[in-house]
């Protein structure tokens, strides 16, 4: 494969495009409400109404507005539109509407703040291209960033560009990606690996799933560029078994990329080789932790080990290994194409670029959004999300899942960046954003997350294994109105100990939901306490 061949594929694909494109979301959310039948019916209707020559019914990935799904979008000579809550029997009227016919299906408003306030880098192609056709990805400029890297840039220059962009890891901790890439590149070793972390175990989070389902080649291209930059020739994509659609689309994508010589040996006729294999996780939350993930890839029990050594020095089978999150890799092509400086121009001083969030919970507009870093929480919750449904008011926003915390409504003006969220006792996390209204009991929320951590603790270290059990029991005692101030003190003491002594991030952050709800909603705990029979 050469650049002109790539361009020829893109050109051929673009020129054969039909006038009207009807885009049917075939991501997990819409698929669960018969999107596959909707697509079949749309195709049959286009034929029946004699529009076959003009209309392409295309399978696309997630459009983001998952709460209003199934979604069907259309493009016609520069105009776009969206139908929401589509049912299979709506196909005839949707196709008829393309010729100006009457259609009762609910129309979405592309100017709605939910869409208007977004900024798309990672999700730029989601809902537009067919994730199962590499030509679609190539037609919008796919794999040119890889070509540019391999032919115009030295590996160190690729690292430099990523460093310049200010990109930080999207898997939760926000470690500067350029620094990590540089470390792996400099670590001595003939064999190196690149690993993509698609374990995504946070309750309420589905950002990575959506990226993998909607635009698998974007992630593969990012991994390939990373491999070139750090000197790796083998990659692993770790995806949880609960994401069968993402896995099958990745398998298709890898096969297609190999056929075109965009993965495999001598990519773009350069000396660079890169193969990617998929590893399927069995659904343990802890396997998202990098050292546990690597143990799992090696075929061992997925438990974390102490760091250092960090994977960058000693990862898979003792070799230097670069491990990044799905969304981190999905940012790379844009950074290479448009430059690190362009990327660094988006966001805040220390948090660059955009972030994808899964907006869920007690909020009118559920779905996936991609926003520039630094956007105030209020804009996300009130304008894009439309606030709480049923006339209720927002009480709190949970970010960072079981490792994060609850931000009270009083702090909605906080900008969404790594430092600001940490300062409030929460974290950016991987992008889960669960909204709670005034009917939510915060002690119950803390208990929910503690139960999650207790069940997902790998059991290797004592503070996390036994500490989460005792913390959960104490929280249960509190919610059952059987606890005293002494129990609450015990709980707080345990939070401190488990946070400071656990082996891995799971235990170290497991107390966070309790600590943060205690910080902002202590009253709710106090109201449940009983007088101590043995005195205060």
């Amino acid at each position, binding site marked *: 494969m050469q650049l002109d061949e790539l361009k020829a594929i893109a050109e051929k694909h673009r020129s054969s495009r039909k006038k009207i494109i009807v885009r049917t979301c075939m991501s997990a959310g819409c698929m669960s409400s018969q999107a596959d039948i909707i697509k079949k019916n749309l195709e049959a209707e286009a034929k029946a109404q004699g529009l076959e020559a003009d209309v392409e019914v295309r399978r696309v990935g997630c459009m983001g507005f998952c709460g209003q799904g199934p979604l069907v979008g259309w493009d016609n000579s520069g105009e776009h539109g969206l139908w929401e809550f589509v049912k299979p029997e709506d196909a005839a009227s949707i196709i008829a509407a393309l010729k100006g016919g009457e259609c009762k299906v609910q129309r979405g408003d592309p100017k709605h703040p939910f869409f208007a306030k977004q900024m798309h880098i990672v999700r730029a192609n989601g809902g537009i291209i067919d994730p199962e056709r590499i030509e679609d990805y190539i037609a919008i400029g796919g794999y040119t960033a890889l070509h540019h890297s391999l032919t115009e840039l030295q590996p160190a220059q690729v690292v430099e560009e990523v460093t310049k962009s200010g990109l930080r890891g999207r898997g939760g901790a926000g470690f500067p990606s350029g620094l990590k890439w540089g470390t792996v590149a400099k670590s001595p070793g003939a064999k190196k690996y690149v690993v993509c972390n698609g374990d995504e175990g946070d309750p309420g989070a589905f950002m990575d799933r959506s990226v993998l389902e909607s635009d698998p080649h974007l992630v593969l291209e990012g991994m390939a560029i990373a491999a070139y930059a750090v000197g790796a020739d083998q990659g692993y994509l770790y995806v949880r078994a609960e994401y069968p659609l993402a896995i099958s689309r990745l398998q298709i994508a890898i096969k297609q990329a190999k056929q075109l010589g965009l993965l495999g040996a001598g990519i773009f006729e350069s000396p660079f080789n890169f193969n990617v294999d998929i590893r399927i996780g069995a659904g*343990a939350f*802890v396997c998202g932790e990098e050292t546990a993930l690597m143990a799992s890839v090696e075929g061992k*029990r997925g438990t974390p*080990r*102490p760091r250092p050594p960090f994977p960058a020095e000693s990862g898979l089978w003792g070799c230097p290994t670069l491990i990044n999150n799905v969304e981190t890799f999905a940012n790379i092509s844009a950074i290479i194409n448009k430059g690190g400086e362009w990327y660094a121009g988006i966001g805040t001083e220390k948090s660059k670029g955009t972030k994808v969030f899964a907006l869920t919970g007690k909020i009118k507009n559920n779905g996936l959004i991609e926003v520039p870093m630094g956007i105030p929480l209020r804009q996300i919750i009130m304008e894009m999300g439309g606030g709480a449904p049923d006339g209720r008011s927002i009480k709190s926003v949970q970010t960072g899942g079981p490792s994060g915390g609850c931000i009270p409504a009083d702090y909605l003006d906080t900008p969404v960046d790594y430092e600001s969220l940490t300062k409030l006792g929460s974290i950016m996390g991987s992008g889960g954003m669960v909204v709670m209204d005034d009917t939510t009991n915060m002690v119950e929320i803390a208990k929910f997350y503690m139960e999650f951590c*207790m*069940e*997902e*603790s*790998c*059991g*290797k*270290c*004592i*503070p996390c*294994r*036994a*500490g*989460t*059990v*005792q913390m959960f*029991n104490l929280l249960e005692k509190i919610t059952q109105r059987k606890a005293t101030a002494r129990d609450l003190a*015990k709980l707080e*003491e*345990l939070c401190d*100990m488990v946070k*400071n*002594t*656990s*082996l891995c991030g799971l235990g170290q952050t497991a107390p966070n939901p309790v600590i943060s709800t205690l910080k902002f909603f202590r009253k709710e705990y106090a109201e449940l306490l009983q007088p101590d029979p043995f005195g205060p």
Partner: protein
Amino acid sequence: MAVKTLTIDGRPITAEEGATVLQAATEAGIKIPTLCHLEGVYDVGACRLCIVEITGTTKLLPACTTKVSEGMEVQTQTERLRNYRRMILELLFAERNHVCAVCVSNGHCELQTLAYSQGMEHIRYDYTFPKWNVDTTHRLFGMDHNRCVLCTRCVRACWHIEGAGTKNIAGRGATSKIITDLNQPWGDSDSCTECGKCVMACPTGALFQKGSTVGEMVHDRDKLEFIVTAREKKQWVAAD
């Protein structure tokens, strides 16, 4: 071999490059409490009893897996550490059914010894009284899950000293369990060589020789060390 100088509890110490803080401390006669550490097998840093404070890092680090570095300042006995260690021990006692008075290892138990040495006076947490069984299907040995602390010393001894790979760990969190082969009764195990190294490695009365009664089960740790020293250093006399 390069030498590093560091201080532990204010005492200047030298240690070989690549040594762990635990090795350096032990060599200097400074005692750091340990439980999952076992001479002769690799360390996993799991029990967290050996955590120490190191100037310059906010994180507490396990001495058994942290390598010494030049100029390192280590504290092993601060009030905070001692308090955390007591809490960890209390969590262990509340986690399973540790009834010392009727235990084969009473008086020779590392968990019990640690509780004494760390000043554990009572257990502030509710006992969870889980239901665990005792596997007495093996011809020579027994496994009482009620007394297991999941240190995985038996697993490591079985895999890395004996090389049999019989012992393993299954499940997760508090329901993790030491298993034999594919979670079958020990007596049915095809891979067990009956070497008894797991029993020697166990810090509590969880693994025992059949026929021992209260207080009779003494784990012969020196034998394990002897085998490893012989193998790795080609040194065939027992260190005393």
